[in-house]
């Protein structure tokens, strides 16, 4: 039986090679009629037997600000990897809106389709200026030939100015991104996400290494973004989570342990046991 398994896997009728998939059209009016914009159902990912995600089910509503907390190794980053197409789960399903199956799409398609991601360590294009970083991120036709002959129109320039205003980097617009402070890089990266005009922002540890003042600004920034975008924040800093969170999800060993407001979650005995009580 065993030797035939790979063959069976390859010939599974419900899975086709990615390149044979029809092009998915991300329409601007994404179907979110049932509330959630992002559905993760029974997602399991294992690395060499270790289950990073274990039957994880999670729903993110359109326009909500959700914080995800959990001890190290709870699967927070893996969850983001699955949503953005970097890691393919062993089983389960991930849908964007009602119709779009994210498991069939590549990282690039997902990014273009409206899910932006900020990494744990700030990654910006260091040898480009702040302005160029935003220009590159701006939603546009990102094929090779259109990019070669691309130039910014007035609407796009205005949009970049607007984003510069939001992330408070207007004065640094012509500085090389590599020369920015750590906190400014974090903001620039959030600005790059905004420039992609995403529906969902996945933000991994936005305030790591920030000063108290910068943290406060970041909290303001993220709360102001909710509503227009769905924002999912993964963070360790409990103080920060308390300051922005409306709904908190606690992950533990790859699945959801508790969900609710910060107070509810903090008083949940299971949560206290695995996380807060430590």
């Amino acid at each position, binding site marked *: 039986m065993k030797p035939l398994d790979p063959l069976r896997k390859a010939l599974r009728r419900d899975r086709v090679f990615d390149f044979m998939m029809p092009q998915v059209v991300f329409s601007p009016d994404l179907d979110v009629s049932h509330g959630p914009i992002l559905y993760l159902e029974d997602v399991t990912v294992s690395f060499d037997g270790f289950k990073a995600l274990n039957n994880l089910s999670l729903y993110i509503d359109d326009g909500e600000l959700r914080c995800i907390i959990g001890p190290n190794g709870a699967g927070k980053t893996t969850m983001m990897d699955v949503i*953005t197409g970097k890691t393919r789960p062993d089983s389960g399903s991930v849908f964007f809106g009602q119709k779009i199956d994210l498991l069939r799409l*590549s*990282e*690039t398609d997902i*990014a*273009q389709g409206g899910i*932006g*991601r900020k*990494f744990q360590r700030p*990654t*910006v*294009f*260091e*040898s*480009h200026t702040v302005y*160029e970083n935003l*220009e*590159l*991120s701006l*939603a546009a036709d*990102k*094929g*090779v030939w259109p*990019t*070669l*002959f*691309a*130039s910014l129109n007035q609407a796009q320039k205005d949009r970049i100015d607007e984003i510069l205003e939001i992330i408070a980097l207007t004065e640094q617009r*012509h500085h090389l991104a590599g020369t920015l402070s750590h906190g400014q890089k974090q903001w620039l990266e959030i600005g*790059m996400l905004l420039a*992609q005009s995403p529906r969902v922002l996945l933000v991994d540890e936005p305030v790591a290494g920030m000063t108290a003042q910068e943290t406060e600004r970041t909290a303001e920034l993220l709360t102001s973004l909710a509503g227009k975008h769905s924002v999912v924040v993964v963070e360790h800093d409990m103080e920060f989570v308390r300051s922005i969170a409306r709904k908190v999800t606690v992950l533990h060993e790859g699945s959801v342990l508790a969900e609710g407001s910060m107070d509810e979650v903090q008083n949940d005995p299971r949560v206290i046991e695995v996380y807060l009580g430590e």
Partner: protein
Amino acid sequence: MLLGRFYHSDRGGAILLAGLFLLAIVVPVLNLVVPESSPFHLSTYTVTLIGKYLCYALLALALDLIWGYCGILSLGHGAFFALGGYAMGMYLMRQIGDRGVYGNPELPDFMVFLNWQELPWYWLGFDMFWFAMLMVVLVPGLLAFVFGWFSFRSRVTGVYLAIITQALTFALMLAFFRNEMGFGGNNGMTDFKDILGFDLQADSTRVALFLASVVALAVSYVACRFIINSKLGRVIVAIRDAEPRTRFVGYQVERFKLWLFVFSAVLAGIAGALYVPQVGIINPSEFAPLNSIELVIWVAVGGRGMLYGAVLGALLVNYAKTYFTAAFPDLWLFALGALFVLVTIFLPKGLVGLWKKRGKEPEP
């Protein structure tokens, strides 16, 4: 107006183009107009030598585009150069006609020697100049496309890519060494007579080839500069600095790399095609891995990530090579090695970096 802006945004490039323009006027005059008795006369040998350097400079430009800006270190770029050269060589072979040693109007000498009765199918069409020129572009481009498609799609990068490009050129060298491949084997192709009906030994033809090299280098430089200054150029640098980020911003990194790799290979092929009629020979040693590594040294010495740096490096190192191999034949390889070590330690940005240190790069 446009020139002024160009000068401000790319001073080194403007100087380079002015230099090429000057070269294009002075060299032909000194060779063709100034009488041979005059001390200012430039020998045809020198004209061809400079033409050869310019072909190397074009090759260095092609490598700098992918290595300096996109971080793709190809240690096999000599292969594309040689393929372009072979395509040109095949055309020149067919132009010999019945003037070969064996006087066979249809077959090149080496095929007669091997007792072949007819021209292999892949030689068909090479008697036509336009077809050969098409192949100069198409063959290196196609190889780069197939090779790049497989390696970039599998996300092969860095040292691993460098090693397989090295393997590529080595494999091609071994293949072209074989007589039954039908490309002249060990000896390659030589003893060319004329190109487009003009005698290759004539001074005027030599000067014309030299001018073609100048024009090719200048046009390629402007094209590369256009690419680098476009949004595509910024995407390419972004890929070099933070590939995963570029992917999550929504660019299909593989396609950009492949596009640039193919473009670079085509430039290398054109350089090879201009090189062959000037040196008068093409043989499998052009595929030697050592050539491709030397090419990397030219770019590093000149300054990678600056297009004119690559050109400068190629010209300087090759001039030094010509001088040293004549003056101290045994020491050349040591000098080359020392040069590379010294540049890596003391001038990580190459010679151009030395000059640029004085001021920050001008704002685009």
